[in-house]
């Protein structure tokens, strides 16, 4: 086996994050590629949540349906993943779980190990999780010292006793794992891949947050909302180190207006939210348009409408990002497909927002922000966060009409000029005007037509993978990149490629020709109306037929297997 999918299934609040994070760290340190994604209910305790860990000899970055090893922490969670359990699934569970239940009544045949018993021997049942970690680690034939090092790093701050007992628990787990190997001939040997040096692990929210810092972000105003809150958390945790003003706003309206106020005063601000919160921000978005304020919006999608499924995934807010807010102004929407892209796009979002004085979106979703996998080291030594503002002099006019359509942006306190911005239609000085014959049209052209011109050089074409000239294409956007990529890799169809859009609005001018030159065009989206397909038609005239639109709106991400099946049905 070169590619193992381990699923940990538990109730909220059972502390399985420890199991997940230790295992991921151990696998990575042992030199494997890892991927982790979670799905969870909107509650704090109880229910059934799962985390999938993939361990492989090659890069893995997408969700698989298949479960090779299942580690259930409740009986209910076995039901929860029932449809993913096959005869090949190895179930490893704590004996205690089946104290009153015969596994055969659940039609499963788990390997039962005394995790809790061992933990009690060491002194406390809470070590049971670490015992399990030891077992899995040994099962993968990973040297015990790897895990020990990780545990030391993790627990040394908690005092000697805790640290020691965790180590003991881990070792006792390793022994069970080794026994399992020999007794049950269950052994996993993954060829260690080369060049793992410096590979880093981040989830989507962290990538956005760190990309923001690379882009010079020093202000975040946000109201907590799943699944976007991780960006707020990460920037808060780094606020002192990077000098970031953090305001948990009273509501999303405030968050947006604070961000615009902050940009006005020379900060670089981001807002981070999900659909419902963003809806509340749209009046403010329009203010950014009118005042020609730069702005970066992180919008992490989840299924709607309204509260919907707060912890699930969707791509339902593309239209919302593109069209929301009253009146007309220019905006740019990115939807990263990979963790690296999320970092770089967010960094670039700040540069473009500042250079063009427009709102730039980073559109993600729950599946994307909560998943992580190892990626090559990111080198930021060449990056600079260039400020787009200028020093002003006495006669400064914030909305000067210039040839290229950009009015130099001053900030209060830098130079002698007064920086006067206005949400009403205004003249070059920023003063209210009712001049509809010349001022208003000129200002509209500046905010809309000229800005869209200025945006052209920043637009990026979609990514075609793997064959640049394939006659059939599967269009996708945002977070579906990895799952489609892996499906295509496994299918190996010579004449089928993915066309992945990370730059979703406005579209790169190559888009139309790309579509019309293709033989067959399919699309895959996580919504019920085919929002991106409709956008393509609107912008290029190319209509992807209804039967080629593969729309999913269940709240679950696609698995690699499902994409493969879908493509097979399509004849590939």
């Amino acid at each position, binding site marked *: 086996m070169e590619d193992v999918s381990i699923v940990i299934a538990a109730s909220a609040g059972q502390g399985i994050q420890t199991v997940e994070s230790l295992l991921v760290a151990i696998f990575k340190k042992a030199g494997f590629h890892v991927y982790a994604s979670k799905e969870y209910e909107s509650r704090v305790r109880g229910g059934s949540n799962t985390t999938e860990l993939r361990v492989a000899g090659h890069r893995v970055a997408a969700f698989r349906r298949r479960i090779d090893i299942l580690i259930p922490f409740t009986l209910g969670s076995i039901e929860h993943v029932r449809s993913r359990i096959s005869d090949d699934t190895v179930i490893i569970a704590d004996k205690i779980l089946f104290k009153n239940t015969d596994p055969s009544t659940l039609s499963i045949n788990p390997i039962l190990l005394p995790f809790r018993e061992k933990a009690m021997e060491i002194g406390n049942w809470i070590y049971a999780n670490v015992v399990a970690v030891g077992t899995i680690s040994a099962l993968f034939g990973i040297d015990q010292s790897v895990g020990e090092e990780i545990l030391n790093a993790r627990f040394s701050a908690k005092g000697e006793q805790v640290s020691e007992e965790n180590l003991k628990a881990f070792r006792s787990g390793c022994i069970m794992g080794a026994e399992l190997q020999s007794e049950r001939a269950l052994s996993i040997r993954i060829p260690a891949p080369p060049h793992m040096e410096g590979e880093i692990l981040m989830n989507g929210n962290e990538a956005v947050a760190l990309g923001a810092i690379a882009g*010079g972000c020093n202000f975040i105003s946000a109201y907590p909302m799943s699944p976007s809150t991780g960006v707020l958390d990460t920037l808060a945790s780094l606020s002192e180190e990077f000098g970031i003003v953090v305001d948990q706003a009273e509501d999303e309206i405030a968050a947006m207006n604070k961000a615009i106020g902050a940009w006005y005063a020379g900060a670089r601000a981001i807002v981070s939210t999900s659909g419902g919160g963003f809806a509340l921000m749209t009046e403010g978005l329009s203010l950014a348009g009118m005042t020609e304020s730069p702005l970066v919006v992180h919008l992490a999608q989840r299924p709607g409408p309204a509260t919907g499924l707060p912890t699930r995934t969707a791509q339902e807010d593309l239209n919302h990002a593109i069209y929301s807010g009253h009146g007309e102004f220019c905006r740019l929407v990115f939807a990263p497909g990979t963790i690296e892209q999320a970092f770089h796009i967010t960094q670039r979002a700040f540069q473009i927002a500042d250079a063009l004085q427009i709102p730039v979106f980073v559109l993600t979703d729950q599946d994307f922000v909560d998943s992580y996998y190892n990626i090559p080291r990111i080198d930021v030594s060449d990056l600079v966060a260039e400020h787009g503002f200028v020093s002003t002099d006495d006669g400064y006019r914030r909305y000067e009409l210039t040839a290229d359509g950009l009015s130099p942006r001053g900030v209060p306190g830098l130079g002698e000029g007064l920086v006067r911005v206005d949400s009403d239609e205004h003249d070059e000085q920023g003063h209210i005007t009712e001049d509809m014959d010349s001022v208003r049209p000129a200002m509209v052209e500046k905010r809309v037509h000229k800005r869209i011109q200025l945006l052209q050089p920043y637009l990026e074409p979609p990514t075609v993978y793997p064959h640049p000239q394939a006659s059939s294409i599967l269009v996708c956007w945002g977070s579906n990149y990895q799952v489609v990529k892996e499906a295509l890799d496994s299918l190996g169809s010579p004449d089928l490629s993915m066309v992945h859009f990370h730059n979703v609005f406005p579209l790169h001018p190559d888009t139309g020709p790309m579509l019309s030159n293709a033989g067959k065009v399919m699309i895959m989206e996580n919504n019920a109306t085919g929002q991106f397909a409709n956008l393509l038609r609107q912008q290029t005239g190319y209509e992807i037929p209804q039967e080629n639109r593969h729309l999913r709106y269940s709240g679950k991400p696609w698995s690699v297997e499902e994409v493969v099946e879908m493509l097979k049905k399509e004849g590939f």
Partner: protein
Amino acid sequence: MEFNAKMYDMPQEKAWCPGCGNFQLHSILREVLAELSIPPQELVFVSGIGQAAKLPQYTRGHMFNGLHGRSLPAAMAINAANPSLKVIVASGDGCTYGEGGNHFLAQMQRNPDIVNIVHNNMVYGLTKGQASPTSSKGMRTRVQVDGVTNEPFNPLAVAIAMGATFVARVFPGNKAQTKEVLKQAIQHKGYALVDCFVQCVAMNKVNTFQWYKEHTYELEASHDPTDRQMAFQRALESEQYPTGVFYSVEGRPVFWEECAAYRHNPEPLFRRSVDMEKLQDVLDSKA
């Protein structure tokens, strides 16, 4: 530099009605700024939308004329992004206590270092005369056809309940006191609310200049503005409305001072750049 009130005036025509209370308030504010010798380059006037909210349009200084109801969040952020600027919010009663009510509450909790001047004409002026949160019970309008039935909003009582650090009411018809209170508000470190009774000659026929004059009186010199309990009691008076500083406490840290961003660096944010080396370390620590 020589400072005078005229210096803070902008040349364009004011779109207020002749006799509007905003004129008096505007001219008093300009005098105060001159007497405090604050250069326009250090002033940021922030407002929402409404007649009152046009004040920044007419006042020399930086200007952020934002959305109806949203002056306070913008002001708070400007203060946090560059604490060396003096931020003065001037907006209406509808803007601040109506559409913007949640920001009013939340900013008082944060204590940003800003002055919040509310032109309280007890009506929606710009939209032509609907009731505002502070409108008197019984006032008839085109919407409140049988008269206002809502309990009037008492901004001072709420601010005192919220623990705002400076809470005052003025009537610009009393110029001397208005000047004095505005001065104190501007010099106060932290959030300062100044609710101003201004007449709307066009839309509010109940609360006229004369009415305000007859229904206000100065808080006695003996009033102790650190006595929260007493401040609340005085704020509840509603036959005759006291003017002056109801409540004031010094020494509570302001929002930006509490921010980690200023712990090691006093510079405004726009003067800073990213420490890419440190970021490299953070990224590398994810290995």
